[in-house]
C-alpha cells in the first residue's frame, strides 16, 4: 500500500519580528507522503533547513489533535487550510498534489501582531476573557451540583459555544478583524447557563468594552467567522451577545465597573509587569 511521494512548492511568509518587513520565501519540499500532516511536512522541511544551517520556519503547534488552539495560519487564503471546520494540524497532505504551489501566511489582524514568521500574538483574547468571561464563585462555596437543573437543550447550547478553542481563526477570517464570535461565544456560553445569569450585565458590558479597546473591528454579519470556525460555532453567539447588550444597556439597573486590573490602562493588561 505504498503511496506515491510527491513534491510541492511552499511559499512561506518570513518576518523577523513585529517591526521588520516581511516577505515570501519559496521552498521546494520533496518526498511528501499523503499520510503526512501539513505540520509534519513543515517539520520535515525544517529538519532539512536546520541541517543546512538555515533558519527554520517558525510556527506554533502543541497538541496536534485540534483542541489546544495553538496552531493556526492561513493556507492559500484559508485560515487553518482548505478543510472545513478543522485546525491546520488536522490538515493532511493528501489534500495536495504534485507540483502544487501552496502559500502560507500568518493570521493577519491589527490586534494580532506578528511575532515571527507564522507566529502571532493572540494574547488580546485572554484580555477579553479577563474582563468578564467567568463566573465568580469561590472554591468550596458551591452548592451541590444537582441543585439547579439545566434543561438538556440549554446545556447543549451552552456546550456548543463553550467548545471555542481560542485559535483566532474567526478574527483572521473576518473582513473587519472582529473578535465578535470569540467574545460572543463566551458570553453566550455563560449567559445560557443559570449559573452565569447573576453576572450577565457586568459580563457583556465589560467584555465588549475591553474588546473594543483592543483594536478588534466591528461585526458586519458576513459570517466568515462561522464558515472557518474549527469548532463550528454559530453566529447565534453574536446575536446572543447583542441581545445581552440590549438587556444590559436598557433593562438592567446595574452600572458595572471594569475589574481592577483594567483601571490603570485598558490595553496594556494583564500579563507582564
Amino acid at each position, binding site marked *: 500500500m505504498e503511496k506515491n511521494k510527491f513534491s510541492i512548492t511552499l511559499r512561506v511568509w518570513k518576518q523577523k519580528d513585529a517591526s521588520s518587513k516581511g516577505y515570501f520565501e519559496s521552498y521546494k519540499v520533496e518526498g511528501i507522503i499523503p499520510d503526512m500532516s501539513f505540520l509534519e511536512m513543515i517539520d520535515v522541511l525544517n529538519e532539512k533547513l536546520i541541517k543546512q544551517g538555515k533558519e527554520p520556519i*517558525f510556527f506554533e503547534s502543541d497538541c496536534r489533535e485540534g483542541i*489546544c488552539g495553538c496552531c493556526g495560519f492561513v493556507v492559500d487564503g484559508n485560515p487553518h487550510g482548505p478543510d472545513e471546520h478543522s485546525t491546520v494540524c488536522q490538515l493532511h497532505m493528501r489534500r495536495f498534489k504534485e507540483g502544487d504551489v501552496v502559500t502560507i501566511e500568518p493570521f493577519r489582524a491589527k490586534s494580532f501582531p506578528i511575532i515571527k514568521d507564522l507566529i502571532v500574538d493572540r494574547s488580546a483574547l485572554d484580555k477579553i476573557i479577563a474582563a468578564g*468571561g467567568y463566573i465568580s464563585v469561590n472554591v468550596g462555596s458551591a452548592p451541590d*451540583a444537582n441543585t439547579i437543573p439545566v434543561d*438538556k437543550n440549554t446545556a447543549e447550547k451552552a456546550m456548543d459555544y463553550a467548545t471555542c478553542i481560542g485559535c483566532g481563526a474567526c478574527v483572521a477570517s473576518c473582513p473587519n478583524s472582529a473578535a465578535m464570535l470569540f467574545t460572543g461565544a463566551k458570553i453566550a456560553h455563560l449567559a445560557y447557563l443559570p449559573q452565569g445569569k447573576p453576572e450577565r450585565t457586568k459580563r457583556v458590558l465589560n467584555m465588549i468594552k475591553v474588546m473594543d479597546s483592543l483594536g478588534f473591528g466591528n461585526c458586519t454579519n458576513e459570517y466568515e467567522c462561522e464558515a472557518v470556525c474549527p469548532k463550528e460555532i454559530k453566529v447565534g453567539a453574536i446575536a446572543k451577545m447583542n441581545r445581552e447588550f440590549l438587556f444590559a444597556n436598557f433593562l438592567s439597573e446595574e452600572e458595572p465597573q471594569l475589574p481592577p486590573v483594567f483601571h490603570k490602562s485598558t490595553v496594556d493588561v494583564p500579563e507582564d509587569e
Partner: protein
Amino acid sequence: MLKLDAKIPSGHIEQKWDSYKFNAKLVNPNNRRKFDVIIVGTGLAGASAAASLGEAGYNVMIFTISETPRRAHSIAAQGGINASKNYRYDGDSVYRLFYDTLKGGDYRAREANVYRLAQVSSQIIDHCVATGVPFAREYGGLLDTRSFGGAQLQRTFYARGQTGQQLLLGAYSQMMRQVSEGNVKIFTRREMMDLVVKNGKARGIVVRNLLTGELERYAAHAVLLATGGYSNVFYLSTNAAACNVGAAWSCYKKGAGFANPCFTQIHPTCIPRSGEHQSKLTLMSESLRNDGRVWVPKNKGDKRNPNDIPENERDYYLERMYPAFGNLVPRDIASRAAKKMIDEGRGVGPTGEAVYLDFRDEIKRQGLDKIKEKYGNLFDMYYRITDEDGYKSPMRIYPAPHYTMGGLWVDYNLMSTIPGLFVMGEANFSDHGANRLGASALMQGLADGYFVISSTLPNYLASTKFEEAHIEDSEFNDSENSVRSEIKKLFSIKGNKTPNEFHKELGNIMWENCGMGRSEEKLKKALKLVPSLRDEFRNNLKLVGDEGFNQTLEKAIRVRDFLEFAELLLKDALYRKESCGGHFREESKTPEGEAQRDDENFAHVAVWEYAGENKEAELNKEQLTFEYLKPSTRSYK
C-alpha cells in the same frame, strides 16, 4: 539520604483530611498579600491552584510555556472526570472510589492521599458546575454520568468528548477572574530553567523568556510545580509537543526526590503511526472498546483486506484471553496483549504495528446510526487522519505512551523533599500508584489545585520562618549563570544532528526497551545506549539561530533533559523487578503470562535522589502500608 516523611495525619482514614484541616495553621487574610507564590504550569492543577490561592488573597505569579494559559495539555483529555457523587444510586461512595483507585493503581499509592482524593472528588463537580462547565445532562436537567474502565459503576461526569477542555477552560476562567482582580499575574512564553533554593527552601525560579531568550528571575515564598508528565521521553506519545520534563528535572537536580519514574501508562487505543515523519500520536477515547471488538488474523503475515478474512481465521484475542472482561480489560492489559500479538508477527496495516478494532458486529446489531451517534466524532477523527472509513473496514489501533504516574515525590501536603517546593497534578507521583484509571487524571489535577493546595500551602507559609530572599541574591546569580553557561555550551557544540533526531532516537530506545514489556536484558542494553546517545548529543548537536527567540534551541534544551532523565527511568525500571500496573517486567509474570506483583519486596515508593553530575542516583524508599485495603491480585479473567 532524603528525609521521606509522608506526614500523614493520624486518626481514622475517614477523618484524616478533616483533622488535618483543623490542625493546619492559617494565614490571616490581611497577611496573605505579603506572601508571593510562584506556580509553574497552567494546566488543570496550575490554573486551579492560581484561582484558589488568588481568591484567598495570596500574591500569585503563574508561568506558562505557551502563548496563553489555555493551551495547556489538560485540554486534550477526552473521556471524563470521576466523582463519588452516587447520583445514580449504583452503590458508589467515597470509600468505593478510594478502593477502585487504589486497586486500579495496583497498590502502589499512599492510602491517605487516595482517600483524600476520593473525598474531595464530589466537591470538584459542585465547583465546576458552579463555574459554568457545561457537563452533559439528562432530560430532567440533572447531571449525566457514564461508565469507564476499571469501575463497575457509572461515576464519570463528562462534557461530550471534550471534558478536559471544558474543565481546563473552567479553571482558566477562574484564574482569569483572579487576574482581573489583580491577585494573579500571568507570565506567558516562559520556560522554567531552574529552581532557586536558599537556606534549604525553594525561594524562586529562573525562567527563559522564549520570545527574547532572556533569563528572568522571580522570587517567592513558595514554588508550586504543575508541569505535567514526561511521556514525551518516548518521542511518540499522545502528549503535546511542549510537554517536557525540564522543570521537574531541574528540581530533581536541586534535591527533590523523583519517585517511581518507571510507572508510565500506555494507552491501547491510539491511531498507529503512518511513517518516519510521525510527530505525535492521536488518542481515541477508550469508550470505543465498549462496542468495538479487537482482533488480529490467526495466521502470521496475513496481508488480506480485513473484510476478506473469514470469521474462523480471526483471533479475537482479548475475548479469548480474558473472557470475563473481554474487550474492556484495563489499559495496561489491553496494551500488553496487543504488543504480544504484534511480537508474534500478527500485526496488521502497512507497518505491521497495529491491531484491528472492528465495529462490524455492533453495526449489524445496533445499526449504523446508533454507532454514529455514539462515536461519530471519533470515526471522523480517524478518517481525517488515516483517510480510511472505520464504518466500512475495521480501524487500526496501536498502544501509545499517554500518562506518567511517576513524578516528583510529595508528602501529604503535596510538598516535595525541598521545603517550599510543592508539586501538583501529573507532575507529582502520589495518587495513581502504578496505573491510573480512566477519568482520574482530571480529578487529581483539580483536587490538588482547588482543594488540597489551598489548605496545605497556608499551613507551610504560616508555620515557616522566612528569611529575606531577593532576586539579586547570590543563589539567583548562581542559578542564572549555570543556566546561561549550559545554553552557551549547547551552542558551542556545532555538530550535525538536529535536536529532533536525537529525540527520535531516544524515543526509539525507550519504546523498544522500556515500553510495554521490560526485561533486565533490554533495560541494561538501554542503559548503555542512552548514555552513549547523550554523549553524542554533547558532541554532535546542531543548532541554528541565536540565543533569542529560537524554537530549535527550546527543543534542544528539552531533549537534553530527556536524555538525562531517561537514564533514571531505565534505572528505576531495572530496579523494580516486579510487574505492577503499567510497569511490566517480563521476568515477573504468572504461569499464564500475567503481571506478577511482589508485595514483599516492592511495596514501597522508589524515590531517587540526585547525587551530582556523573554520579549514580541514590535510592530512597518510602514503605507503603495498607491499613484499610489489603493488597489483592488484580484479575480480569
